[in-house]
């Protein structure tokens, strides 16, 4: 590895991230195959809609612990908005939409990422609760079960939208980000742009891990 790289994630974080990401992608694709008749063809490679349904349901069981660990890992850094810097950042949309001379410095995660955290945490739990009831609906009140489908579709709408923005900004939109969650190491200039305040705090406390 090159000298001077900065460590931003540990292996446990990366494992949880990918368990959640892969299960979520499988859930979205298999869900799409059930949601629209025009996407029923997604079931062809797995041998029919019944199998797609089972894949969806059992992948849900992988998603449940992944989400719970993700919330435990990230709620402190990504779940709490810090003022005033987060508000300043929001006012200029983090410099993502128009040119900003100096983007306000935020901690490890910016308010956009915090919004993503909350969307996934909240609607992830919604997906789990509604999904489990939809999987085993018999015995629950009819009116309750009816709304589970509606909420599950709402959650899909929110999670898919945020997911794609996350995918874009985590790859081509902000070059150099993928390595943060693949190897855990990023360049110093990336860290200076993405989490300047965190970088300073880590350096001051002497906790920053830099490659030799």
């Amino acid at each position, binding site marked *: 590895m*090159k000298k001077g790289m900065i460590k931003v994630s540990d292996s446990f974080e990366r494992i949880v991230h990918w368990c959640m990401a892969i299960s979520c992608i499988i859930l979205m694709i298999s869900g799409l195959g059930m*949601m629209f008749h025009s996407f029923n063809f997604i079931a062809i490679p797995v041998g029919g809609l019944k199998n797609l349904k089972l894949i969806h349901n059992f992948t849900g069981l992988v998603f449940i612990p992944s989400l719970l660990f993700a919330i435990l890992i990230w709620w402190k850094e990504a779940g709490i908005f810090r003022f005033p810097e987060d508000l300043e950042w929001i006012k200029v949309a983090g410099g993502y939409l128009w040119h900003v001379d100096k983007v306000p410095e935020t901690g490890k995660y910016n308010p956009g990422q915090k919004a993503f955290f909350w969307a996934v945490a909240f609607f992830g739990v919604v997906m789990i609760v509604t999904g489990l009831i939809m999987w085993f609906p018999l015995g629950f009140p*009819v009116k309750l079960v009816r709304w589970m489908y509606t909420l599950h579709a709402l959650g899909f709408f929110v999670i898919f939208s945020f997911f*794609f923005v996350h995918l874009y900004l985590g790859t081509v939109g902000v*070059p150099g*980000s993928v390595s943060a969650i693949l190897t855990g190491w990023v360049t110093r200039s990336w860290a200076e742009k993405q989490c300047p305040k965190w970088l300073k705090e880590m350096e001051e406390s002497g906790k920053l891990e830099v490659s030799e």
Partner: protein
Amino acid sequence: MSEKIKLCDLSKCTGCRGCQLACKQWNQLPAKQTVNYGTYQNPPDLQPNTWNVIRFQEISENGAVDWLFRHDACMHCTDAACVKVCPSGALYHTKYGTVALDSAKCIGCKECVFACPFEVPRYDPETDKVIKCDMCYSRIDNAMQPACVKACPTGALRFGDKKEMLQIAYARAKELGGDASVYGDTFVDGTHMIYVLPRKAAVYDRLPEKPRVPFSVIAWKDWLKPLSLLAAGGVVGGAFLHYIIHGPKDTSGGGDQASREGGE
């Protein structure tokens, strides 16, 4: 092909249950052992192997006791909530306007069970599929009457062209007078089983007064589905436009950070 209707005139029903039995016979649905729970109604409800059931109901009015019998089965809605939600296309409208079910396609997801405003479809754990009355599609498509209609000895059940059945129904309701009414043609865009009810709809056990496709189903299927497609297009298109107009973020370390070493 013209729409067909099964007309069920409750004023003529004697509760003989011939229809219930004929349905079992034609569709090969042997009965199971049941227990007496204090009423003549048997089995207690629609079941995977009972697609129509005569509901027995005792009511007392001004000191007099009256018996109500209601042939309860799928209503074959035009705006059918079950067809709307079925992800596999197992439930479908036939050319007669009735709602049939292609069992081979059913994945047992039970979505239809909870969507139906009449709570008709039944899940069978043995086959892991859902089943309901299909208006004897195999019979009507061969110019025969549904088995239940064929068996009915009193003429309470009739089957025929929509227009003719509606005429008969309205004439009969008028003839009965009082609270008598026609039930079925005015909601969910018209059902293909209609009742002539001698009494107000509210009197009958488990018969919804104003059935409609549940609001949750409309929000889910008519709003959220197109909305999620719109959102998908929005975020994909938005990301692309962002890339070509605003461009990706420069994380390479320009400006006053240019001299910093590491990772270049």
